[in-house]
């Protein structure tokens, strides 16, 4: 009924359609995953008094909760460094490595620990079992908090516009406004990253 050439042509187009379809579907799935934020949380509105971290009475206090091995958070820290360099901010970021209870305390030394330890802009802390994270209401790696010297929360949320995606984001926009002593247009932003704790 069909010649060999026709069959080959049909087969070829079938292969092309399937391949393009699969690739397109895959890219769509990838995009969907990338831009799927972490679970929303009820973050604290005031600096938690039980926190072992110190609230600065001079400047803005910034806290970043990170999963030691989350690849997406590394982008957030890179963006933060770029931001600090660009805006010449005077404060530091308290980076809290959340260590699951089941993991040993040395676990935090994998992943981003050495990077953070080498940057004076960051001050590393270890939060075994996620007590600090619970106090602040952080569940996703890359969750950033900003408090004024009175302990009022100015901003909380992610600093990237997707999982591991560099570039402008709502979080960085708000932070820039804060640095410029303006009221941030957006006080929260979705957080993209790995869950800090097992559910």
């Amino acid at each position, binding site marked *: 009924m069909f010649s060999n050439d026709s069959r080959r042509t049909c087969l070829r187009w079938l292969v092309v359609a399937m391949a*393009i379809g699969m*690739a397109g579907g895959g890219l769509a799935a990838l*995009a969907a995953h990338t831009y799927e934020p972490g679970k929303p949380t009820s973050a604290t509105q005031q600096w938690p008094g039980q926190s072992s971290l110190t609230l600065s009475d001079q400047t803005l206090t910034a806290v970043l909760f990170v999963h030691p091995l989350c*690849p997406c958070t590394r982008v957030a820290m890179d963006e933060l460094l770029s931001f600090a360099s660009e805006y010449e901010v005077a404060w530091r970021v308290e980076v809290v490595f959340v260590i699951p209870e089941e993991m040993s305390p040395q676990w935090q030394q994998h992943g981003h620990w050495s990077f953070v330890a080498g940057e004076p802009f960051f001050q590393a802390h270890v939060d075994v079992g996620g007590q600090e994270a619970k106090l602040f209401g952080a569940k996703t790696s890359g969750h950033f908090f900003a408090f004024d010297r009175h302990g009022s929360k100015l901003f909380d949320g992610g600093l990237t516009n997707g999982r*591991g995606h560099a570039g402008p984001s709502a979080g960085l926009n708000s932070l820039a406004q804060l640095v410029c002593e303006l009221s941030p247009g957006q006080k929260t932003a979705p957080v993209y990253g790995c869950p800090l704790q097992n559910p």
Partner: protein
Amino acid sequence: MDLLEQIDEFPFSGELRLNVTEMTHQRFYARERELAASTDRLFRWVMLAQFAAALIAALVFTPMTWIGGTGTVHLHVWAALLIGGTLAGLVWYLSTTAPGRASNAYVIAIAQVMMSVLLIHLTGGRIETHFHIFGSLAFLARYRNIRVVLLATALVILDHGLRSFLWPQSIFGLTQVQAWRWLEHTGWIVFEDIVLIAAITQSRKEMWRAADQWVQLSLNKQGVENEVHRKTHELEHGRHLLQASQSRLQTIIDTAYDAYLSLDRQLNIVDWSRRAEQLTGWNAGQVVGKSCAELLALNELIDAIKKALEFRAHFRDGDSPCATSLIETLCQTSGGKPFYVEASWNLIGSQEQFCIHIFLRDIMDRKQQAMQQLHSQKMESIGQLAAGIAHEINSPSQFVGDNLCFLEKAFQQIESLMGWMNETLDPSNSRRVTSQEKVRMKLDSTSFKRITGEIPKAIQQSREGMHRISSITRAMKEFSHPGTGQMVSIDLHESIQQTLTVCRNEWKYVAEVVTEFSDEVSKVQCHPVELNQVIINLVVNAAHAIGEIVHQLPAGRGRIVVRTRLVRSTHSSPSELASQATQLDQPWEAGHEMVEIEIEDNGPGIPESIRSRIYDPFFTTKPVGKGTGQGLAIAHKVMERHHGSIHLNSIIGQGTTFQLRLPVAQAASPSQTLVNVFDDDLIGGR
């Protein structure tokens, strides 16, 4: 008919010109297909590299994803593996199964854009990675197909545009962006497209020009090839003709009666025909490259050629051919046996392609015939002279006989007288005393005084008669001797005298012979038998001519003068040398001594009309039985053999003079060894 086969129709017809455009199209599209195929193959590897890069990027940057302490393989790794693998596999499949297919470029453009999206994603959407789009477009531009670039651009713009409206966060990181912001990003793509499209358009024009030039070159090449083919065919045909001609020429040379050989400037043998092999016993392999003179002798020929070469170098244009020359010379076989050949030779060719062509003809038979002819003519002369010679011998014989009779009778009378005297003076005889008177009477009665007076005369006459007979027989002996065949030095005057004696009976009744011999002339080198034959022929001719008009002569007798003198050759001008060099029948040089023999008669002279024919064999004006027409022909040949000459001066009514000239001393030549050749030949044949 293939287009290229129509090139023979140059200049092209209208139809062919259209076809030329079609050929350009064909060539252009073929080149475009080649380019598409090579670009397909290029993308095969580009895709593979991108796939590898995606995988590496995923493994390096996002190997795992975590939920608390539980890590799993990151979705980026799976995306790189599956999406990258699918795209790379698709391109590999297309470029392998149907490279160059038109649809491949479009599919590959889609795949490449998707690969860009994947890589941008895997590298965290960094702005640097967005430049991958520009790189992809540049690579796609290698297809030289604007539609492919436009398709890729359209996909990028569509992706950007749709996402900016539908999902701005995925591009700008913000949920609220200006409506025109996507144009900022696509503007750069469009800018690159403009550049790429301009480049592609230019490139396609150049491809078209290249295709057109290729077609023109192909046409020219085909035309040249056709021309070369035609010329090659002509050359091949010419070569066949030349081969046939050479074969014919070789056959002619090999089957010719004459042997052919050619020499180079050093007189070494270059060519050697089959007939030459038969004639000499040498085969070509033995003689080629060797000296002609050493192998074949041919001394006279070699000398002549050397002189001609010398002359050619000085006086003539080196490239112009000489006239063909003929020379008789002695050759030798491989066994060293000499034989006569007639060599016709010529110098042909320029300085570079110079060649001496020689044809050798075996003339041994002719030489034998000439010898036999000479001998026959001599015998004929002897026959003709026999009666006169007999008469010459008879006259002295008669008076010698008469004298002998007289002497016999005188002896008888003297014997009788002596007997009477013995008896008278015998003492026993009673009548022994005889008076003186009686003795006187007895002597008177026997005519003693007369007898004793006549006897000395008779003896003297007899001695003279015998001397004449002896002279004649000796001359005959000399004349009829076959000769040694060698050049010998003879006393010319004595030889002429003997010749005149032999033929005395031919001239003595019609003329007196006067000899005017120069004291300067004594010995001369010649073949005596042949020279005597020449002289006798000329003297007898002179006597016969005088005999025709002897009754008209005042004294009733004619006059034949045989004169000799010594002269010197005076050739010295280039033209004379040239003449000598080319003819070489008179190898004289200035200053050489020549003997001139003139035989002059006061006969009726030779008419002008027949003078050019007198040396032709068998030409005669004498009545039948008196001459065979060989005399002057033989005289001419003999003088030629002696490197001499024979000239005629004749005035009607006053007489004729034949002037013979021959060198006093002959150059060494094979003629001197003629006897060696002919001794055998004449006796037993060669």
